[in-house]
């Protein structure tokens, strides 16, 4: 049943990614016109607008969430592909472990980056 658990979360992560990618598209491609989450002039990707979003807790949490679900979804997919190479059970365990470590490492790094950017944006706002 462990595979059922992994797969259920894989599917759930996919749904969350769809929602967050929709939000991303909305901000990046429509936000420049409507100034949704991009109050400054110029494109949504401009430094001022990026700092505006980075300083909002909602966006910091969203970035970390997107990072988490995208890593899980992608690495589980990679694991599925690797498992179809008819690996030995011990190798399968090793692959799962390595992907878990890589995933946690990248998640930690990304989370640190998101939090640091949030702090910089807040400090910049004060400054």
């Amino acid at each position: 049943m462990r595979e059922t658990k992994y797969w259920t979360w894989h599917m759930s992560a996919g749904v969350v990614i769809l929602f967050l990618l929709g939000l991303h598209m909305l901000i990046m491609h429509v936000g420049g016109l409507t100034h949704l989450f991009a109050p400054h002039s110029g494109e949504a990707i401009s430094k001022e607008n990026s700092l505006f979003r980075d300083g909002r807790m909602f966006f910091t949490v969203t970035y970390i969430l997107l990072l988490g679900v995208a890593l899980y979804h992608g690495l589980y997919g990679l694991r599925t592909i690797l498992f179809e190479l008819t690996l030995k059970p011990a190798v399968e365990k090793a692959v799962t472990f390595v992907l878990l470590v890589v995933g946690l490492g990248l998640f930690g790094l990304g989370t640190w980056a998101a939090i640091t950017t949030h702090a910089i944006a807040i400090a910049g706002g004060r400054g």
Partner: protein
Amino acid sequence: MTMPENSKATREIVFHVTRYNPESDRAPYVKTYKIPVREGMTVLDGLHYIKDNVDPTLAWRYSCRMGVCGSCGMLLNGRATLACNTQILHIADTDLTVGPLPNFEIIRDLVPDLMTMFEKHRSVKPYIVRADEAESNKPEGEFYQSPAELEAYLQFAYCIKCGCCMAACPTLATDARYLGPMPLAAAERYDKDTRDEGRRDRNQRTGASHGAFRCHYAGECSRACPKGVDPAKAIQYLKRQLVLDYLHLARRKKPCQKMHGTGQGKPLPNIPTAPAKTV
């Protein structure tokens, strides 16, 4: 088998048959046989013609000759199907390739080793499991099942275990430990049976690594099935049920109850009574 004298040979077809004897051959090879084919002749008839008139060493497996036993599954022009159920002139103009079912070891020539499939099949408990073991061992009544409840799993019960779906499955081609369409469809068939209480047990196998979640939904199993069973659909049902069970969202239903005593069901009219038991 010789060609009946009153049947007019309409065409000569070249059979490209995969031959392999593990005791003498290092690898399978293809041997060609040119045989006269008349309308209505099946591939199985063609193989019989070769064995009787050209090459008596050719080996294949068959039994019923009418698409019921599932013994003569083989690869005809690259498609896994039953030799007894396929007319030569329906699939060949001049040439016909005949090979053993892929994704299985070859015992000899066109005879695949289906043991791996049957071991996987057995592992999903393809039978009715009841919590009341005494009742299972010594049934004392009939279980009530409505026609609608029967309909829910009936199409999956038509499986004849020929292995064509397993041969057509691209996932099984790369992952030998994958359960495969036949055992998974069998699991779904019993999971859906209202007389059964074994779904949680089966989930341990179907929801494990190399179980239902390895299916990519290529759908080749359903295309290959000579009985019109849809194993790909069964696997999708199975996945949904596994997820609902994991999330504790599945509706809890009591298995159908047995009627009190034998013969309590209402028989349809005009059905004669069964003869008395002789054993």
